[in-house]
């Protein structure tokens, strides 16, 4: 219980401090935890990560819309292209994770879940480099 409370305090502290990209990746790791055979990827956990990815892409699309409307800095298109290098990888991972969870193939589900969690952290960090808060404090 103390460990959970400590994690919550850590996440809140990082969010309040307006932390940098590297800390956003840490927040992601704290939020999702690490999957393992002892801590499997259930359908509930799959939905949790899908909800987080939904929130992430709502933010990314809002950023893109503002950029295309010329409402933000001129370098935004290049920043978005940089982030797309990572976002393009999300869908294949997500498709694999859905299949493994539904088949209850935990060995592969755990591997893909952890890779996807890392990727979400990287995308949030790259967004932060472009000045966008993509839900790192969520």
């Amino acid at each position, binding site marked *: 219980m103390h460990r959970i409370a400590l994690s919550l305090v850590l996440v809140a502290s990082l969010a309040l401090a307006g932390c940098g990209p590297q800390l956003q990746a840490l927040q992601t790791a704290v939020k999702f935890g690490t999957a393992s055979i002892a801590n499997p990827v259930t359908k509930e956990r799959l939905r949790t990560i899908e909800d987080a990815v939904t*929130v992430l892409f709502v933010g990314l699309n809002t950023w893109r819309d503002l950029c295309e409307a010329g409402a933000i800095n001129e370098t935004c298109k290049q920043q978005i292209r940089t982030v797309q290098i990572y976002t393009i990888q999300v869908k294949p991972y997500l498709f694999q994770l859905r299949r493994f969870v539904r088949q209850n193939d935990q060995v592969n589900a755990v591997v893909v879940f952890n890779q996807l969690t890392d990727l979400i952290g990287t995308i949030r960090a790259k967004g932060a480099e472009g000045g966008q808060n993509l839900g790192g404090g969520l």
Partner: protein
Amino acid sequence: MNAMAILALIAKGLTVADVMISAGKSAAPALKIVKRLVSGGIAGTVTDEQLEQGEADLDGLIDRFNAPI
């Protein structure tokens, strides 16, 4: 699901809604997410059908952002 967890989910959804409204967007998609988060959290279990409902929307969001800019 306990009250604190539900409040955390609502806070998450409201944060998204705030970002979208600030950007001049409709808050409807964010509120849809909040509703799904909270109703799913209260139900406790997730079926394949419930997963599929949100997955189509998510796939569309991903494709939209990944289109060349």
